[in-house]
């Protein structure tokens, strides 16, 4: 009886030591990692990580972020068919800085010489001035990580998306690029077994770099008639940059209008190409008006708005509307 009580006490004791040890470690790792002597941390450092490794190496710990990035356009910025074709087999100099950036830090980057198939990868954005950087100061034993507030600011994305950045800046809207294209949720930065439990959950951005969907509330359409003219206006009401937007890509909205006579026959049509490269994209919160002269007696117009992203030749219908006179 006495012996079993001793064993029980031992288990409780070891358990208590274990829990308090874990709690202390958790506290140290997440709140006071500067107390840990550098000599101790040196034992856990992985020097390979500070030699600009491929993304797969980062995935050993940051699995969720890696998987999200794999799904993103950034991961195929060098290998996508559209890019290869548009850049004349990657020979156009103007494309290289942003499709294979060495280091992104607020201004147009330089193209890198190595690991080009990785596109815009972990190291391009997080390994700056020979230091691993991100939105948090972190222990991260294999590599020290330093906080840089630019990671949650639009000017970081503006290194490459310069035109879009300028458009956004002119709107004076507070939501940053990251707010819409990298929505944050609470998650652990590492998924490596054991280490994941030591790190507390933090706000982590979606590294798929979401491409916003254009919904009905985003682009308001107002059609109407005026003597022998058909008038239609489009207003980008919610997206704080031009729609569509691109520095060098060619995304487009297509506005198709078909005109019908009393017999129900299509007698005329019109089309608008709304595209950044043609300087016809929709500015934020400004009504764009299109006017068409009618040469026949028209009683009905059918309007269709379609969207074609820069990386595809396929268009998707955003909306259709029939307008009676």
């Amino acid at each position: 009886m006495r012996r079993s009580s001793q064993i029980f006490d031992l288990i409780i004791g070891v358990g208590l030591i274990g829990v308090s040890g874990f709690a202390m470690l958790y506290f140290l790792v997440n709140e006071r990692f500067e107390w840990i002597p550098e000599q101790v941390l040196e034992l856990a450092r992985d020097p390979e990580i500070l030699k600009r490794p491929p993304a797969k190496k980062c995935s050993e710990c940051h699995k969720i972020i890696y998987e999200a990035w794999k799904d993103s356009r950034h991961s195929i910025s060098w290998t996508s068919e559209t890019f290869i074709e548009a850049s004349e087999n990657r020979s156009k100099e103007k494309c290289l800085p942003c499709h294979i950036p060495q280091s992104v830090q607020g201004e147009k980057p330089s193209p890198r010489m190595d690991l080009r198939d990785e596109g815009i990868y972990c190291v391009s954005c997080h390994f700056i001035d020979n230091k691993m950087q991100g939105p948090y100061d972190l222990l991260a034993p294999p590599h020290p990580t330093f906080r840089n507030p630019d990671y949650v600011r639009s000017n970081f994305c503006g290194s490459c998306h310069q035109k879009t950045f300028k458009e956004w800046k002119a709107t004076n809207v507070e939501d940053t690029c990251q707010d819409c294209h990298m929505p944050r949720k609470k998650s652990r930065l590492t998924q490596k077994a054991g280490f994941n439990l030591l790190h507390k959950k933090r706000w982590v951005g979606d590294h798929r770099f979401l491409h916003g969907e254009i919904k009905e509330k985003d682009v308001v359409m107002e059609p109407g008639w005026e003597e022998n003219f058909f008038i239609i206006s489009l207003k980008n009401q919610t997206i704080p940059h031009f729609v569509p937007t691109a520095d060098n890509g060619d995304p487009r909205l297509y506005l198709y209008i078909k005109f019908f006579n009393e017999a129900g026959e299509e007698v005329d049509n019109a089309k608008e190409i709304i595209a950044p490269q043609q300087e016809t994209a929709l500015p934020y919160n400004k009504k764009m008006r299109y006017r068409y002269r009618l040469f026949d007696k028209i009683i009905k117009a059918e309007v269709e708005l379609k969207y074609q992203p820069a990386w595809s030749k396929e268009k998707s219908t955003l909306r259709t509307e029939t307008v009676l006179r």
Partner: protein
Amino acid sequence: MSFLRILLIAAAFIFIGILPVHAKDMIVKEPPKSLSKYYPPESKQPKWIQQMHKMSTHFGGIFVNLKEKDYENVDVHADKLVEEYKKTSEMVPEWEDYFDIKAVEAFAAAAKTHDIAKAGKESGGLGKTCGKCHAEQEISVWAKFHWPSFHKIKVTDPISEKEVEFDDYMGSISTSFKGVTVNFGEGQYGRAAKALKVFKSRYMELKSTCSKCHATQDVKRFYVGQDADTSFAGLSQELNSEKPNPEKFWKNIGLLGKTGCKHCHLVHRTNSFIQKVWEQ
């Protein structure tokens, strides 16, 4: 064949044979294939032009430092020039004969005497080797490797929404332009107005085409900018009015041609013609 005719033909051959190739005659010959490996996409960087810059810098560096009496750096540039010159001479086997190693070594030796007059005199022999290659090959290299190819550009025709070759697209623009001018000339203003919509749409598509190579807005606005907008607005106003004014109509057509079409053709066509011959 009469003796006289044979004599005349023989005389003609002799005459042609002794006629010197006039200095103004220029042959633009496609550069050798081996040069491709020093330019993208085969190379990550444009190594050939970088090599030219290296030699040019060392050559210039010798004289800059001779003038500044910085003889230590004169010697450094002289050695580097010989090294880079030799390296360049081995890069394109077809062009090996353009290089004269003795000439570069003689120049480097003269430079190392730190006598600017001697260096100037010896630079002539070396300069000739550079000049001969540049005279015969420079245009070809620039046309082939420094200008993106128009003939590889594909344009989405805004009317058919099909992707077409650049040259075919130019043909479509020209045809739709004639739809405007011919109909207007015939007094068919309604048809001209419809043709103008098609022509404008195709013309404005060129902004997207320009942006395939040009990264800044200013460049494409030089071709399709304010003048084009003004011209199209003017043309549209005339064609939508009850009685179009021919004078204003043709003035705007002229403005469009002189600013948009001509600007682009003056800059790009010569090179495009050269590339087309090589790509056929």
